[in-house]
């Protein structure tokens, strides 16, 4: 088979001793870059890109792939241990990863994240290997109407959660949508909601700033209040034996992980979306399909596995439009695209035909990078968990510093640091009033995408609303959204009638 021959050739390059060394160095560096709030795969790849002009392109791409994957794994570490998303893609991992750590299950959460990342990465690379060309056509079939329907679907998975107060969820989504409109309008270029004429608002609300504020700072405030002097974080003990038990635990999560991989891969493949929306959608869907959705947000291992599978799958998925269409699906792939142009490679439909060596070398290095990333990650878990055994008073100050650094680093504006403080206080109050915070983050991530695609569709179709249901793909998504939206209502009614029946009987 042609495909296998190409792949075998690719492996021959990526498994040479020098390249193996490069992979191990790359994933380890990536792991730490990803774990550091404020630094993500974009920074890692940007810093290393110039070095790649020294080594041959095949080794260079292996190094970049290793860092890319390493950073994806690393993002989960600070999300789980400290409650601060280490990278934007790991925002959804804080939802359940942090509560798990507080219950003394940090080790298990980290294993779940590592294994889930591995599964997500592997399934998506296999999909990539087998179906790159037809999938590229699917990405092309996604116009604005389809994008809108997909985002709508993501929202409904969060509304139809069951468990949480539906009204409060909708309020939080609306608040997030309002915040997401801050800044310059994507289509007309007009400024909107520039509070107090502060120039900082022109560039909009970064959702990472919101997430760090609400989860990082808000969490610390909450912990300080509830724990008074006693540390609430139970120090987790971890032996290699329990590592193995943790991996066995993952066996029960196959369904969540396979769904996460598919969603992640497909959403990551769409140039407009990327890994962060993918992780949030996978989380919403895992919760929707779970038998006890109430346990989500309170330390459910599935809530860690779903987003972690999805964000790794998405990082592979976003390579697909970059290689086949020349359109990067994420900021990091945009950087890789720049590197490829420099190596004399022209991404686009002809790349697979003209440069098979490069393409298959890259694909095979994704397999190796993924394998080594999970090994290095699991080997380092005891070290990470050990960090949690610091006294709470020390840890608390450290987390606060990391929150500020993480918020300041990407844009280097004090404006964002003040926003983090504001969101931290706001997040703390919302948590006290029992409002769910995940829908807020979801709305600010997906809001701009939803608004843009909605308006593009209406402009293109002369304001005809039926455009959304006239197209088969978007009609399907909208139909599923409607089901998700109505599901909690149905459940509610059934519960009502059952309860009525139950209360009437004793009266008889």
């Amino acid at each position, binding site marked *: 088979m042609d495909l296998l021959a190409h792949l075998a050739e690719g492996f021959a390059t990526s498994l040479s001793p020098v390249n193996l060394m490069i992979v191990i160095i790359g994933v380890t560096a990536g792991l730490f870059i990803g774990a550091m709030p404020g630094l993500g795969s974009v920074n890692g790849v940007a810093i290393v890109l*110039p070095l790649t002009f020294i080594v041959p392109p095949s080794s260079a791409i292996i190094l970049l792939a290793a860092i890319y994957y390493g950073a994806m794994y690393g993002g989960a570490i600070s999300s789980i241990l400290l409650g601060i998303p280490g990278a934007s893609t790991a925002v959804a991992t804080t939802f359940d990863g942090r509560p798990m750590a507080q219950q003394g299950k940090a080790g298990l959460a980290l294993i779940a994240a590592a294994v889930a990342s591995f599964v997500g990465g592997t399934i998506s690379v296999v999909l990539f290997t087998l179906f790159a060309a037809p999938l590229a056509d699917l990405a092309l079939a996604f116009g604005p109407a389809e994008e809108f329907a997909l985002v709508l679907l993501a929202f409904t998975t969060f509304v139809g959660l069951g468990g949480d107060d539906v009204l409060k969820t909708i309020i939080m989504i609306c608040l997030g949508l309002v915040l997401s409109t801050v800044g310059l309008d994507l289509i007309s270029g007009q400024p909107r909601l520039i509070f107090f004429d502060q120039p900082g608002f022109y560039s909009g609300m970064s959702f990472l700033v919101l997430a760090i504020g609400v989860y990082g700072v808000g969490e610390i405030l909450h912990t300080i209040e509830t724990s008074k002097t006693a540390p609430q974080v139970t120090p987790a003990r971890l032996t290699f034996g329990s590592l193995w038990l943790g991996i066995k635990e993952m066996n029960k999560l196959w369904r969540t992980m396979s769904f996460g991989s598919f969603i992640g891969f497909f959403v990551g493949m769409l140039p407009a979306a990327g890994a962060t929306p993918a992780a949030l959608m996978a989380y919403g869907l895992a919760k929707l399909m779970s038998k006890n959705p109430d346990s989500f947000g309170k330390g459910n291992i599935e809530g860690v596995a779903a987003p972690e599978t999805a964000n790794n799958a998405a990082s592979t998925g976003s390579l697909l439009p970059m290689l086949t269409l020349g359109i990067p699906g994420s900021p990091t792939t945009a950087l890789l695209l*720049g590197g490829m142009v*420099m190596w004399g490679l022209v991404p686009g439909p002809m790349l697979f035909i003209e440069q098979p060596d490069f393409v298959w070398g890259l694909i095979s290095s994704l397999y190796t990078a993924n394998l080594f990333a999970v090994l290095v990650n699991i080997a380092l878990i005891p070290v990470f968990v050990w960090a949690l055994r610091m006294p709470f008073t020390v840890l608390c100050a450290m987390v606060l510093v990391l929150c500020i650094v993480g918020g300041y680093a990407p844009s280097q504006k004090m404006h964002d640091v003040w926003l983090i403080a504001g969101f931290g206080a706001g997040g703390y109050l919302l948590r006290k009033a029992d409002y769910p915070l995940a829908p807020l983050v979801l709305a600010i991530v997906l809001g701009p995408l939803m608004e843009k695609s909605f308006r593009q569709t209406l402009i293109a179709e002369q304001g005809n609303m039926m455009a959304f249901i006239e197209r088969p793909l978007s009609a399907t998504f909208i139909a599923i959204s409607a089901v998700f939206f109505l599901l909690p209502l149905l459940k509610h009614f059934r519960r009502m009638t059952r309860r009525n029946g139950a209360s009437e009987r004793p009266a008889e």
Partner: protein
Amino acid sequence: MTYTLTRRLAIVATASLALLAAPAAAQDWKPIKPVEMVIMAGQGGGADRLARLFQSIIQKEKLSSMPLLPVNKGGGSGAEALRYLLDKEGDNHTIMATLNSYYTTPLRTDIGVNIEEFTPIARMALDTFVLWVNADSDVHTLDDYVAAVKASGGTWKMGGTGTGQEDSLVTAMLEKEFGITMTYVPYGGGGDVAKNLVGKHVDSTVNNPSEAMGFYNAGRLRPIAALTPDRIAAFPDTPTMGELGHDLVYWMQRSFVAPKGMDPAAVAYYTSMFEKLSQTEEWQSYMSEQALLNEFLTGDALQAYFIEERGKHADLLNAIGEGS
């Protein structure tokens, strides 16, 4: 001119430094941290690809002692980037890759930006525009095109970058010249526009050749006419608008600017960096492959060019009723 002068000064300064051992190396400016390269457009478009190519060449040829970090700020037709540069006053480690929205965006919306205050660095090239349709389309010639647009009764979808940006101006020029109306659908960047034409979500585009080249080579897109004075070497069979009797020519400038108040020594450093870049073999061959015109310009002459172009675009915007 300023560049050679400053460099000469720098040489003199270094020489005197060596002789006198005095700490007077102010002229010999070098970046001390990574340089942020702001891009006024989204990912995957012509401006973005070019900026990333520059970054790669600069790093490969070691033209800068510090790496360049590209940052996309394409929101609001580049208004996001302009505001950002305004806030960076006096910063020696920020440069911005511009396109024509450098003049049109401040003309259309009052965002408190006056481009005369920014520091010009270098114009690298002029880019061209081509009218494209999907390769499966029945449209083969300009006449087919005009007939098809007329038959659609205004529902013909022209995809392009943000409203008021280059693509929408070219669209307006076409509408005026041929007496047609189209529905203009704005997207985030040129790459996104090309993808939507291949996916048949729009009916035509006016992408720069570099944005459509990959799809063209794969046989997915068809060029109809070029908005250039001469035929583009990469598309020898595509007529120019002029050949077809329509005087339509429009360029896209590809320049770099810096914030207001940048240290003159730093300006000299970046100007010299881009001058060296413009002579590299990579850049020269890229320009000929992607149908760019080599029009290098720096300093005051560049600033004068910006101001002249701004005037022309003000007229253009007023003519189509888009001016503020």
